[in-house]
């Protein structure tokens, strides 16, 4: 699939057809996530792939932003102790969340190329998700990504163009 077509075609999907996802497909899209850049090549991201519907139901209970019945939920996490060890405060506070977001974006595009829909979720209770997924103390969930066979094709919201891009200096 053409990369620009994937970037422009991807949507945030919140309605899924009830179908499971092949583990090999999930492994491929997670592999794509790990090819994202990371500050100082830290690679302190950790991914928890949840496919058991009972566990997904529990995640939904504590994640108001997790909508629909996805075939899988990927918790994009960061080992913040490892991030701090690698990059000090900058590594922990700025680079780790940015790296997680870049990895998540790769995941979204790879999923789209596989014919899957995704939605990135930040509205979840971190301490509850950490307990449900049995995360070690230093591993923090940064984003949840629902993944599934899409049962909708949302329209693309208009993209802002005015005042977004500036050449050489802001306002240029």
């Amino acid at each position, binding site marked *: 699939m053409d990369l620009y077509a994937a970037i422009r075609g991807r949507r945030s999907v919140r309605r899924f057809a009830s179908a499971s996802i092949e583990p090999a497909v999930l492994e491929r899209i997670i592999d794509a996530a790990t090819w994202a850049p990371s500050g100082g090549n830290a690679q302190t991201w950790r991914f928890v792939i949840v496919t*058991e519907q*009972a*566990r997904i139901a*529990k995640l939904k*209970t*504590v994640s108001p932003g997790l909508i629909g019945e996805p075939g899988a939920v990927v918790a994009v996490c960061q080992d913040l102790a490892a991030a701090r060890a690698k990059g000090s405060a900058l590594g922990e506070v700025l680079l780790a969340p940015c790296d997680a977001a870049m990895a998540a974006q790769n995941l979204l595009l790879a999923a789209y190329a596989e014919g899957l829909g995704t939605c990135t979720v930040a509205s979840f*209770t971190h*301490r*509850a998700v950490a*307990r*449900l997924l049995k995360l070690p103390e230093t591993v923090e969930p940064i984003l949840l990504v629902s993944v599934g066979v899409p049962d909708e094709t949302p329209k693309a919201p208009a993209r802002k163009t005015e005042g977004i891009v500036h050449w050489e200096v802001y306002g240029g």
Partner: protein
Amino acid sequence: MDSTALEAKVFDLIGYMTSSARNLIDETPAYGPFRLVDAASQLVAILEEAGVQSPRLTALRQEIDKGKYSVTVGPDEFKAFLDALVDTFVDYLDPGEPCCGP
């Protein structure tokens, strides 16, 4: 409680929630989370009055009612109360038994 009385109480609760939703756009932000947990407590109270017996719901309501006014003490106190409430909820949601069997 008959269904007419139940409907009336739920109707009142919906009023509380919808008017809170509108009012909170212009009200103290911390009152939003307060109204949420308070509405949860009121919902459980309605269920109890309707004869629904649930130790975990009653425990959650009691914990809410014991700590919800920490919102007037300060943000740190209110956050600590809410964190503890979330922990209690997860204790019931995932009591340590195997989630999903073969």
